[in-house]
């Protein structure tokens, strides 16, 4: 996916003015957080699980090479293949090559953020292969030709009304010419259309929520069961995911699983959890003949051993964006790349560069709501801070802001001069707000000082 994060400001402005989007976000704002709160309250060991999850992930990351090897050995023993891809391009080409080798014309796809990251659909289409999204949200977006706006609810920026219109437009040629308005009817219609596609597809591509080193398994979690049909019907199953999804053992995986659904949607568990470990065995009744795991690095290994390594603990639950007031105001598209919200603001600079994405870690009040809910305790605000430091050091921060800050710091370090400045400011601000606070005054009155500054009054009283 080509990043558009540099245009965050204007995209945010548009998002704020988009009434349909604002309606969708309003619904979203109350849903997930409340469900998560209840799920967490019902599980006394939730905090202990978070601690355990941090240890598991930190340990795995410290020995990632070893676990990747173990995973690869197990997959190969089972008759599957593992492909390591340094870049998005390598990953794309690998997937396309596997599909080509199978002579694939259509592929079904489960939801995969890494698939978005490497722009897989575009690559498949360019190779003359038709990708069909099977996750309902992704399916809607494929029709609408839009990227996801949330990592677990990719289409939650769409209202039901918009979906009704989209389905009517795209399904009429397929014989569904009645506009459905109820959620269930819409789902039923999509299911009916997708059902045939599963059986016709030559290759099924899914993401993975976890990779388990000990058994060489990929764990795929969905609420719709589309993942299972995608991976079992076609002759070839490709898992496309990234290296940090690794955990050592099944027991470790279950710790993370208990956190995942609760943090994401407030469910105790998602509806379908499937472990796949290799292609169909001799006595299996069904399953794919070929099994491939395509593992993307995409800039992640460069984070190992740095202060930002904690980012690789992320289990992509979406809780941080569900609780983020900035995400809640502008939605996911404004972030301009695959990962929106706090995790995007912290991770994207590492993956697509700080120049492109400098606004994302800037556009935070440091309210800390994300860190407070993150199941693997990623210090997201601290990582925003890291990027802001980098931006300042590398002169990516705009000149005017840098100069204003330097001037202000100069004053702050000189109390006597600062008092004079404060006296002047108190006098000036009583008359009118300064010109450079338009961002503030568009929506709010600017505060007026009461009179003379505290320190001026204090000095006059003789400082006692």
């Amino acid at each position: 996916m080509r990043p558009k994060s540099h245009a965050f400001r204007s995209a945010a402005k548009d998002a704020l003015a988009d009434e349909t989007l604002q309606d969708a976000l309003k619904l979203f704002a109350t849903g997930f957080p409340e469900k998560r709160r209840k799920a967490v309250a019902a599980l006394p060991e939730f905090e202990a699980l978070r601690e355990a999850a941090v240890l598991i992930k930190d340990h795995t990351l410290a020995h990632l090479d070893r676990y990747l090897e173990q995973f690869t050995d197990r997959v190969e023993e089972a008759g599957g293949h593992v492909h390591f891809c340094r870049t998005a391009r390598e990953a794309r080409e690998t997937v396309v090559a596997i599909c080509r080798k199978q002579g694939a014309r259509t592929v079904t796809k489960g939801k995969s953020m890494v698939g978005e990251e490497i722009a897989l659909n575009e690559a498949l289409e360019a190779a003359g292969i038709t990708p069909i999204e099977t996750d309902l949200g992704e399916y809607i977006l494929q029709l609408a030709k839009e990227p996801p706006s949330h990592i677990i609810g990719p289409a939650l920026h769409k209202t039901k009304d918009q979906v009704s219109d989209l389905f009517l437009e795209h399904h009429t040629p397929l014989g569904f010419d009645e506009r459905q308005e109820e959620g269930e009817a819409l789902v039923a219609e999509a299911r009916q259309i997708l059902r045939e596609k599963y059986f016709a597809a030559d290759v099924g591509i899914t993401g993975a929520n976890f990779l388990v080193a000990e058994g060489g398994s990929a764990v795929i979690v969905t609420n719709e069961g589309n993942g299972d049909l995608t991976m079992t019907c076609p002759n070839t199953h490709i898992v496309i995911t990234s290296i940090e999804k690794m955990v050592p053992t099944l027991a470790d995986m279950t710790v993370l699983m208990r956190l995942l659904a609760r943090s994401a949607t407030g469910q105790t568990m998602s509806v379908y959890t499937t472990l796949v470990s290799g292609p169909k065995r001799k006595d299996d009744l069904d399953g794919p003949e070929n099994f491939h795991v395509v593992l993307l690095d995409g800039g992640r290994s460069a984070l190992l051993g740095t202060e930002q390594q904690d980012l690789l603990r992320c289990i992509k639950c979406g809780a941080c964006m569900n609780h983020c007031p900035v995400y809640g105001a502008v939605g996911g598209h404004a972030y301009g790349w695959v990962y929106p919200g706090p995790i995007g603001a912290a991770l994207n600079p590492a993956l697509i560069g700080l120049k492109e994405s400098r606004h994302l870690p800037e556009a935070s009040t440091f309210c800390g709501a994300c860190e407070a809910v993150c199941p693997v305790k990623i210090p997201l605000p601290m990582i925003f801070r890291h990027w802001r430091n980098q931006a300042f050091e590398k002169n990516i921060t705009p000149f005017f802001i840098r100069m204003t800050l330097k001037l202000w710091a100069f004053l702050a370090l000189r109390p006597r001069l600062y008092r004079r400045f404060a006296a002047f400011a108190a006098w000036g601000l009583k008359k009118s707000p300064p010109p450079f606070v338009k961002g503030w005054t568009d929506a709010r009155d600017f505060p007026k000082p009461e009179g003379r500054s505290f320190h001026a009054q204090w000095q006059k009283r003789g400082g006692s």
Partner: protein
Amino acid sequence: MDTVTKKPSVGLFVTCLIDLFRPSAAFATLRLLEMAGCAVSVPDTQTCCGQPAYNAGDRKSAEKIAKTVIETFEAFDYVVAPSGSCIGMLRCHYPEIVKTNKAWRERAENLAKKSFELTEFLVDAVKLEMKIPQPARRIAMHDSCSALRELGVQRQPRQLLPLTEIENSDRCCGFGGLFSVKYGDISGQMADKKAAAIQASGAEVVTSCDFGCLMNIEGRLKRLGSDIKVRHIAELLAEILDAP
């Protein structure tokens, strides 16, 4: 003086926003600290905690300012500010800012231990046992993000005053320092949601432990033409205690 009866010495950190915009909150703080039996000083070498620089990525300036603040306040028994976010700087961030120098880190950690936001100081440190009369008006509480999530201040203001809860009280009001100007439209929408929640609570007054949030909330309420009063919690407490 006998050490048993010696009053604890408190350095009052006024904070730059209150110094400039709402001196009455600082005078109220002073009054409360004195009522609580403290010997209060207002060191005149103080300016600001350095948050604007630190949050904007200007580490060098932040470090210089942090060191000045440490020097200014480390000799007191306590440093108290009517602000969760400035105390958040002293307690949670200064040790990190100066971490590469062992001596400075120790000094920062020492200061961190005795830094208190006003309401937590009154409730937890000096255990103020003063009968606070029931306020006449309905007061809504906005929890500032720094007080709530950096310092864990939530119980203390409620222990001091009966406060009306607003919906999503823990949700950021959208201030965020420079954020409110740089991303004014996002910030403005967040402030609007906060103002709406306050209006829906039916309160006549809204308060908080942080003046930054209050400036933002007041700005939006005024723009909406609301007559809900916006007061720092220090002002309310001092007013109620001083009332005849």
